[in-house]
């Protein structure tokens, strides 16, 4: 008999349970409790989208109007029937609150209810609305019966979506249960996990032990060096898949010696990509080729890549007037991120070989960020960053990270200024909906512009993974929703 209960030892905590506000690790659970209208399918699938609460949509000619047909007979957890009103209510609540990832709806003009099961989104600009509506954040549909409830109420451990699971027994910071919602529209025929106990577990070591001792069927993160053992374990395995997450190192281009493009290039050549992949990620990464992760729209082999070449690095340094290096740089990383802690010393060690002393500082993320933003003159020289797109379109990444933000950037921490680049990506964005090929070409050009100036060293694209029990079937990774295990698709043997 198949087991209905499973334990998930998860390092992903909950910062808020309000689906309109959620913009953090709780998405791991949100996507199991709430649903969006549509969902992006992993690359290589037959269809681009799966249809959840919507059964289909069509766009107007100019790309400003999208009409969605909604699924009938769907119920919220409290029994409220799902209608177009719920869609309008949910999205307007999100934009009204204006928190979290609400900005993705920035170009929304209005939502019009056509009838109970038809709704129209009117946009101000031609944006890829289906991607937005499929976003892992800010696009969940919640029950209009929760109208008088505020964020605080949700944060007490309440939820009311249409997803296959209901939130139960919520103990903040300890554990919570995702329990089967009997009236789920998908039904419970076939093998499905019915109850998931999420055991909040921060330490990788403990997750490993829980997995190995059979206390957990899947975990979020295990010590890097234990992947081989888990992969080849008797009862354990690791499920891999692409993720649209990548690591990068911003160079502070406002200050010598990094204001010299040759120095930056030298550094980009001196980064030990292979070591970072092998040791920093235990092989679970590929060398990045620019800001757009492999598999995502906008990625292309045509983008120039910097390879590890210490000879070239030395030569470039000499050309730049630093024949034996001889300068110091500071590198900061987020203290919460064990991955960065692990590979930062590799960079440091390698840079030492070309005569550059790197001082590594672990700062709490917000401190690191503030330091980088506040004043370029006092900012760190190298800033390590883990990035993931809010929805799977390159524009957000390219725009956020490198468009000219002046002296008070939010994300352009290289202080990179290139009007040609800004123009290129704007054009690409606007053509995405109508001429994808043209858009891709523009994006490649834009990326090569960046590579020529080398304000950022693109380190690695991460391979997503879930260490899990061999008995757990149906676990897969959808790069558009990194970190979301869709429990409904799983079952235990």
């Amino acid at each position, binding site marked *: 008999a198949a087991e209905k*209960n499973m*334990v998930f030892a998860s390092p992903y*905590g*909950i*910062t*808020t349970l*309000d689906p309109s*506000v959620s*913009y*953090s690790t709780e998405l791991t659970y949100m996507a199991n409790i709430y649903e969006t209208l549509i969902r992006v399918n992993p690359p290589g699938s037959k269809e681009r989208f799966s249809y959840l609460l919507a059964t289909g949509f069509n766009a107007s000619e100019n790309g400003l109007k999208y009409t969605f047909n909604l699924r009938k007979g769907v119920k919220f957890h409290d029994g409220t029937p799902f209608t177009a009103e719920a869609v309008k209510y949910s999205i307007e609540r999100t934009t009204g609150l*204006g*928190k*979290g*990832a*609400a*900005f993705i709806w920035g170009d929304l003009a209005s939502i019009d209810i056509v009838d109970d099961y038809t709704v129209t989104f009117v946009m101000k600009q031609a944006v890829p609305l289906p991607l937005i509506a499929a976003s892992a*954040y800010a696009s969940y549909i919640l029950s209009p019966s929760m109208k008088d409830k505020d*964020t*605080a109420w949700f*944060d*007490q451990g309440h939820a009311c979506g249409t997803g296959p699971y209901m939130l139960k*027994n919520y*103990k*903040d*910071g*300890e*554990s919570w*249960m995702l329990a089967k919602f009997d009236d789920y529209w998908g039904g419970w025929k076939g093998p499905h996990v019915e*109850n998931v*106990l999420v*055991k*909040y*577990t*921060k*330490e990788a070591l*403990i997750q490993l*032990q*829980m997995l190995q*001792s059979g*206390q*957990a069927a899947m975990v979020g993160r295990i010590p890097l060096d234990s992947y081989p053992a888990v992969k080849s374990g008797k009862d354990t395995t690791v499920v891999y898949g692409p993720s649209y997450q990548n690591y990068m190192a911003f160079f502070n281009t406002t200050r010598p010696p990094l204001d010299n493009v040759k120095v930056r290039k030298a550094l980009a050549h001196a980064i030990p990509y292979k070591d970072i992949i092998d040791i920093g990620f235990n092989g679970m990464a590929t060398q990045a080729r620019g800001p757009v992760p492999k598999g995502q729209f906008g990625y292309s082999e045509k983008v120039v890549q910097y390879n590890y070449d210490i000879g070239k690095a030395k030569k470039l340094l000499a050309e730049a007037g630093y024949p034996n290096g001889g300068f110091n740089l500071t590198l900061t990383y987020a*203290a*919460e991120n064990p991955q960065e802690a692990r590979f930062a010393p590799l960079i440091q060690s390698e840079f030492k070989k070309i005569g550059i002393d790197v001082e590594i500082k672990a700062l*709490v*993320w*917000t*401190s690191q*960020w*503030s*330091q980088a*933003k*506040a004043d370029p003159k006092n900012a760190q020289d190298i800033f390590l960053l883990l990035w993931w797109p*809010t929805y799977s379109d390159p524009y957000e990444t390219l725009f*956020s990270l490198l468009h000219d933000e002046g002296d*008070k950037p*939010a*994300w352009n921490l290289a202080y990179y200024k290139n009007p040609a680049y800004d123009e290129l990506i704007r054009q690409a964005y606007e053509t995405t909906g109508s001429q994808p090929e043209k858009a891709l070409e523009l994006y490649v050009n834009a990326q090569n512009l960046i590579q020529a100036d080398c304000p950022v060293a693109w380190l690695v694209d991460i391979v997503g993974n879930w260490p899990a029990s061999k008995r757990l079937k149906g676990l897969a990774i959808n790069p558009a929703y990194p970190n979301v295990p869709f429990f409904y698709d799983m079952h235990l043997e």
Partner: protein
Amino acid sequence: MSLVPFLSRRLIGLAVMLVALSALVFFFSRSIPGDVAAMYIGGMAKPEQIERARQELGLDQPLTLQYVKYMKKLLSGDLGISLRTHRPVFQDLLEKIPMSMEVVLWAIALAMVLGIGFGGLAALRQGTWIDEGIKWLSSAAVSIPIFFLALLLQLIFFNLLGWFPLQGRIDTFLEFSNPLELVTGFSLIDSLLTGNHAAFFNVAWHMVLPVLSLIAYPLGLITRLTRSSLLEVMSQDYILAARASGIRESVLFFRYGLRNALSPVLTVVGLSVALTLLATFYVEIIFNWPGIGYYALTAILSLDYPVLMGVTLMIGTVYVVANTSMDILRRIVDPRIK
């Protein structure tokens, strides 16, 4: 002499201390670089969003005004809202404190009983191998870093021997069959209150290793102190006089000597409470114990200053309360103390 003025003096002291403490924490935590509003919004927020949050949180006002507002709210038990979880800090603390205090109190109580026992035994058998053994063990106990001890205990008792559970306060399978329902937050008490006996024993079993890790330092400290204090007391005139009047050695030791030796021990017990509470930071990480330490640690890593303030005030209060109650005990035990 009497307890009432003493207590009221201590209470006033406590209040003053907390005000000072809160000011310190407030201005200190606000001097930490990091955009609080951005943090509150979370993720990759847009500048206008951050600006809105800044206003919402009142961060655009002068710092002193913010402090005054904070204090006003504090008086009504409102510690503000966590920037990270967006939940009221006070409520979070109410949930987390019992979880940590449960282990801390067990550790302290056991450390006190065992420490006084071992210390007494060592003093009683001064110079013998028992004394030597206890001396070595207590030296070792205060010398081992808590995180290392916890790791070792886990390695030995879970991985090698499998006697004790790895993590958490209750086995996961019980969460399906007999989920722990919280009433007071003290899981042992709650499991009894809700008649959940399976959970009771399970929770107790889960507590063993964390308590063992926490106990080491205070136990060593108390043992050593009891021993030396008792030895000093046992050479006092009044003990000699009592012995000369034919009082039985055991009575002499455990009734006369121990009570006299207790006063410095109690001081250390008081200090140990706050110390052990801090030590839970480590133990909770290693044993995945969802208490205040874990909570504070997460807060600190995300610069969640309302939480930090709450935690600091709480630990400061625990410190003062523990010390005060130990002072009261000391006055009861030793009438000479003014």
